């Protein structure tokens, strides 16, 4: 992406943190299995692993937010056993959690100082604000300290989280997937902040599942797979490919091999679409997009910019104020067709963002969920009864193809893990006759193998003449398989680009709303 952050570690420094044989279980699930690794003083140490590998659990154990079942943790040369994060904070450990932990209506200053021991019983907000401003200057963070954090951008909220950790002057900072919600520019800013921390002597544990980030910033990397440490290796001397092999456990080809497909006429046409949020504010303003047959249109944008409402309008659960949506020769915003059933029967398949609440019925079995919405199709029913034999054989096949981890077709779907829930939905949706697929973050929570399997199914849909609208925050995903990229910001389309004629930085700028672009 861009230059490596220059970090000059002292080589023979003793480890600031050493974890030995740490085990943490949830019921029968072993989230961390005999994990051992150590972090050198003043280094950036990456924890790399796929979703569910146990990275967050490990971080929480180190931070005292979760208690390990077994194992030892040494910090600054002493064995520690934190019973609460307060102990960890006192010793100089800070953590930025995977999901924001902020009080929305309160400003950055209040969010940063709340519960800190250094403040007196009576607050001196002016003095605290000055102190935080000084920190911002020191690390080159630009942040409005007076507005409620809910009104800050996602990137700025991340700075608040980081300032929370820096405010107490940490020696070791744990960052749990801090880049997941950031634009490329913000990731770059974050990395330069990390660089400054390291110069100040802070050691950093950066959790990620993105290989290019590991290559970009870390000194060492520990790879976790299914709760176990695969290896700890120095970053220098490794490549993305060699790390990927450790991550996945076999050689892996990251390129999506797309054959040349001639795009057909539009499969989905959105014109001048205006949609309101539940609270009456504008979610989408005059949005126009085309998805042609045989192409993937990637819709990039930081979440909360209208993507959810667009998805809901397309599948027929949210009303539009203005505009037209045409697909399969039908104007679907009409009263008679704008409902989920009619739209699905016209050939629109969808993968929602919140799979468990919008895409599945928890109490139903895997096989029931796999044919949800298809129960009337002749393949699975005979008259008024269901053809369980056909359903079961379809389910078994889907379980195998998508490598769904389940005890079998009869297991209630609510017992599956996040990644496997997604696989159930995808298996169901791609089995339908599809003209348009609308997918929201299709690979979120999937491991690499499953992700590429999903992509290969997408390519098959394209070959059969379908068009795909893929909504995603993840620029890796967007650039990996899109033909064209549209950027949404604040409910507007900022521009539409051919994937070969645009780079990540440009898309990042549009995602941050920095440039308005004429679109046709």
């Amino acid at each position, binding site marked *: 992406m861009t230059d490596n952050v220059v970090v000059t570690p002292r080589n023979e420094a003793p480890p600031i943190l050493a974890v030995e044989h740490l085990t943490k279980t949830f019921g029968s699930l072993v989230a961390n299995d005999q994990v051992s690794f150590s972090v050198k003083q003043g280094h950036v140490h990456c924890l790399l692993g796929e979703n569910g590998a146990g990275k967050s659990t490990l971080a929480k154990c180190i931070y005292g937010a979760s208690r390990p079942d077994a194992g030892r943790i040494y910090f600054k040369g002493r064995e520690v056993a934190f019973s609460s994060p307060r102990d960890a904070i006192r010793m100089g450990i800070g953590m930025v959690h995977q999901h924001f*932990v902020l*009080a929305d209506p309160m400003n950055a200053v209040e969010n940063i100082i*709340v519960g800190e021991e250094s403040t007196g*019983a009576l607050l001196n907000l002016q003095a605290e604000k000055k102190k935080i401003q000084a920190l911002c200057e020191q690390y080159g963070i630009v942040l409005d300290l007076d507005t409620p954090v809910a009104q800050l951008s996602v990137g700025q909220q991340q700075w608040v989280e980081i300032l929370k950790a820096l405010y107490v002057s940490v020696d070791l900072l744990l960052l749990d997937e801090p880049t997941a919600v950031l634009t490329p520019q913000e990731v770059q800013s974050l990395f330069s902040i990390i660089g400054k921390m390291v110069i100040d002597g802070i050691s950093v544990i950066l959790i990620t599942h993105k290989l290019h980030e590991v290559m970009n910033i870390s000194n060492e990397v520990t790879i976790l797979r299914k709760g176990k440490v695969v290896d700890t290796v120095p970053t220098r001397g490794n490549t993305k490919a060699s790390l990927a092999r450790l991550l996945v456990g076999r050689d892996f080809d990251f390129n999506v091999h797309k054959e040349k497909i001639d795009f057909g006429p539009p499969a989905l046409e959105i014109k001048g679409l205006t949609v309101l949020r539940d609270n009456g504010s504008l979610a989408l303003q005059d949005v126009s997009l085309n998805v042609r047959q045989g192409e993937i249109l990637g819709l990039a944008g930081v979440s909360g910019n209208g993507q959810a409402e667009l998805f809901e309008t397309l599948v027929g659960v949210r009303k539009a104020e203005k505009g037209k949506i045409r697909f399969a020769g039908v104007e679907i915003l009409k009263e008679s067709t704008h409902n989920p059933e009619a739209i699905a029967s016209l050939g629109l398949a969808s993968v929602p963002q919140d799979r468990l609440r919008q895409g599945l019925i928890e109490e139903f079995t895997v096989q029931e969920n796999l044919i949800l919405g298809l129960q009337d199709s002749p393949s699975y029913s005979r008259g008024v009864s269901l053809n369980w034999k056909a359903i079961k054989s379809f389910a078994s096949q889907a379980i195998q193809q998508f490598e769904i981890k389940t005890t079998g077709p009869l297991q209630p779907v609510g017992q599956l893990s996040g990644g496997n829930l997604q696989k159930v939905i995808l298996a169901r949706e791609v089995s339908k006759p599809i003209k348009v697929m609308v997918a929201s973050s299709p690979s979120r929570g999937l491991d690499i193998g499953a992700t590429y399997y999903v992509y290969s199914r997408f390519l098959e849909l394209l070959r059969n003449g379908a068009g795909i609208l893929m909504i995603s925050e993840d620029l890796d995903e967007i650039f990996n398989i899109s033909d064209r990229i549209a950027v949404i910001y604040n409910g507007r389309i900022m521009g539409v680009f051919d994937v070969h004629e645009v780079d990540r930085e440009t898309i990042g700028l549009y995602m941050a709303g920095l440039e308005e672009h004429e679109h046709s």
Partner: protein
Amino acid sequence: MFNEFLQADMLISIFASAVRMGTIVLFAALGELIVERSGVLNLSVEGMMLTGALAGFLVGYFSESLWLGVVSAALAGMLISVIFALLAIVFQVDQTVSSLTVNIFAAGLTFFIYRTVFPDVGSQGTPNLVPFSALKIPYLSQIPVLGELLFSHHAMAYIALFMVLIIWFYLYRTKSGLILRTIGENPRAVDMKGISITLYRVSAVLFGGLMAGLAGSVITLGSAGVFVADITAGRGWLAIAIVIFGDWKPGRILWAALFFGFIDALQMQVQALGIKLPFQLFLAMPYIMTVIAVFLGRRRAGAPIALGTPYVRE
């Protein structure tokens, strides 16, 4: 009659009594504000007030010390709030269910105790005591108009007004107040600093009970001088509505309490003047006001985000 009604001194007396009526609910509303700011929805203010009203009356009656009555009312309100705290926070029973339990319990308990202590009520006349008299502040109470409006109330009214300042200062200027507000918005943010959510929420509920108890004592010791079943007559509910109408902010809650105190005072004046309106209307007044308050405050912009949600560590 209406001419009389509109006379200046009549108006002043209505406003003065608005302040008096307002302070009753003000105590309870400020207590509920602290409870709700911690993210707990306590709907048993009515029951806690009723308990305070009885305890205040009984102790005041037998000890012949009004202040001892006030202190007992506060303690009794706190004691009954322990039940709510245990149910709703420690055992994480649904907060509405916990509230209902306490309300029903308090209504039954107060009636039972009162009849046990005074078995002959009715035949012997209702036991009564001499309530707080107005504390006319020297010189200031002599000022025309303002004197009667602001400086001629009983001591509890001044305490209530002073509490607004204290609560405001606590919420916005102290470390503990900031923690409490944060717990109401996102308890995890505080949990991750190793601070006990349970401790804060239980303390908030106990404080709410104390304030509701005080509010109850203002009814029996500050104006009525007697206790009858259900003497709070919906003012506990009104206090909850005032918190909503006051958008969970101390200053606005003060104005809301005074506004509804004014309506309360107005209806009493109308009643006193013998203007013919069905008496059921007056009985319904606190409830009608509750509806109005919730309706006017329905935007709920200031509502704590975690309000009503038990905290479970993930």
